[in-house]
């Protein structure tokens, strides 16, 4: 009997395929539909203390094997977001609250609110690569990361996940700083840019953006593997997953569950059902009862 059920990062999931933060997770009805369409959980858009409109369009550069985006952390502010979470929770599956802030106090405030709203865990956005003062500017400072995670773990009751950036000299160093987390989410987007030679300027209004999709899978796998080699902490893999093969690569590199984001551009919401269905078939034909058997088997 194969089972896709898994408990990781302090949360139990019926399925290991989770919606990544930043994709289809601003509107409660959308999150609800993604859950109903087969996602094991959703991570919300990153929410801050105040309402932010984000950047003007263009905010995305879609290409065949990657997407570059600079949304600019649009969000309605934590208080207005309660309504969306309540709607999403009617699907009766885990909702993970992603939060961003520039300091420990704000992270704590946001986490406490998310806990009140009923999320299963908070995911700390320590890695958005394109907004000054937030994201990877916070997440590349090991001292600050350590303080934020420690403070939250000492105060809130729900699990704390830390989403880290690959745009650092040493992902191992930052992982150690975040080691009090219940799980590490690896990786956020790779800092990147697109230039249009006819317009003679960057395409994104913000110039810089984050690259996601197939093209960054080798970077995500490397980060997961590198961190798994030196720690036993739960890892949630994300970056360029669009098939069960990609998912298995992340699992064998050391991830227990995985998130899907950019692949929705090409495959739509049905990708969750397809990947979990393919995983089940793979497990049956390879005699695997639980994906846990494969976590980290490639690490040597």
């Amino acid at each position, binding site marked *: 009997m194969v089972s896709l059920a898994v408990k990781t990062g302090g949360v139990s999931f019926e399925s290991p395929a989770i919606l990544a933060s930043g*994709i*289809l*997770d*601003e*509107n409660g*009805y*959308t999150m*609800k*539909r*993604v859950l*109903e369409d087969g996602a094991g959980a959703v991570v919300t*858009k990153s929410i801050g203390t105040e*309402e*932010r*409109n*984000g950047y*003007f*369009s*263009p*905010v*995305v*550069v*879609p*290409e065949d094997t990657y*997407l570059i*985006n600079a*949304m600019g952390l*649009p*969000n*309605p*502010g934590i208080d*207005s*977001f309660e*309504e*969306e979470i309540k709607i999403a929770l009617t699907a009766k599956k885990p909702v993970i609250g992603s939060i961003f802030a520039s300091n420990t106090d704000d992270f704590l405030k946001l986490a406490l609110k998310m806990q009140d709203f009923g999320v299963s865990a908070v995911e700390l956005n320590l890695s958005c690569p394109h907004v000054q003062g937030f994201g990877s500017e916070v997440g590349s400072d090991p001292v600050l990361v350590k303080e934020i995670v420690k403070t939250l773990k000492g105060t809130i009751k729900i699990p704390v996940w830390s989403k880290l950036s690959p745009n650092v000299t040493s992902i191992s160093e930052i992982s150690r700083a975040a080691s009090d987390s219940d799980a590490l989410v690896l990786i956020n987007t790779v800092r990147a840019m697109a230039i*249009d030679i*006819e*317009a003679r*300027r960057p*395409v994104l*209004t913000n110039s810089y953006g984050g690259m996601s999709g197939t093209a960054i899978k080798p970077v995500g796998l490397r980060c997961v593997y590198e961190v798994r080699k030196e720690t036993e902490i739960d890892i949630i893999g994300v970056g360029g997953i669009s098939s069960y093969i990609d998912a298995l690569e992340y699992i064998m590199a050391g991830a227990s569950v995985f998130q899907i*984001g*950019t692949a*929705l*551009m090409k495959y*739509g919401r049905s990708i969750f059902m397809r990947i979990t269905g393919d995983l089940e078939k793979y497990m049956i034909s390879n005699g695997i009862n639980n994906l846990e058997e494969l976590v980290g088997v490639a690490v040597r």
Partner: protein
Amino acid sequence: MMEHIRITKRVKNTPTVVSLYFKWNVKVLPGQFVMVWVPGYGEVPMSLSQTEDEKCITVKAYGDSTKKLIETEAGEWIFLRGPYGKPFSSTSGNKLLIGGGSGMASLKPLIDRNTTGIIASRTFDELLFSDEFDEDHRIEVTEDGKKGIKGIVTDGIEAVNPEDFSMIYVCGPEKMLKAVYDKIKKLNVNAEFSMERSMKCGIGLCDSCSVDGFQVCVDGPVFNMKQLNGMTEFGTTRLLSSGKRVKI
């Protein structure tokens, strides 16, 4: 991928609306849209008002990008990506097109001899593509009453029997779509509605344009009555650019 396309013709349709024509060797179906980039100003979703070899976008100035875009002259270049979205169904029977504001732009490619149009606008000089319909197949509705029926679009529907048409196509502001939907939902009609919601990515990722979990940019912009039936958000609430929920 961003396409770089030369405008071949510019036509002013109303005091605030301009049509830009161009050759673009890509198959586009009525109802689909493109994202038009105005470097330094922004990017906006635009339905195509002509979908043959020669294509056309019909632009109403309402923000920075569109104000700049309508100044584009023949010979100048525009940037766009797409086409995106699900098109209108085609039908061989007689059609009723209901367009409010600049909504008639995305319906225009559907016009043929079997078509009746209800064209609604606030003022008489904003009536868009009215002339595309034969005089006896054209119902104009203006809020200022200076042309056609004085009133709103639903008053125009009174002038026809919706059940006479094999398909009804509707495009305009969401409030108007909802009013039309409510007016015809109990009738024995087929209808498709092209929805406009604020759109950022155009490719089904950012969640800005979603309605009841469906992305207007990829699941729409065209929805049929069955899809709209029971939608909680349709005509009631939407998200602002920040993601904040507001009433429509």
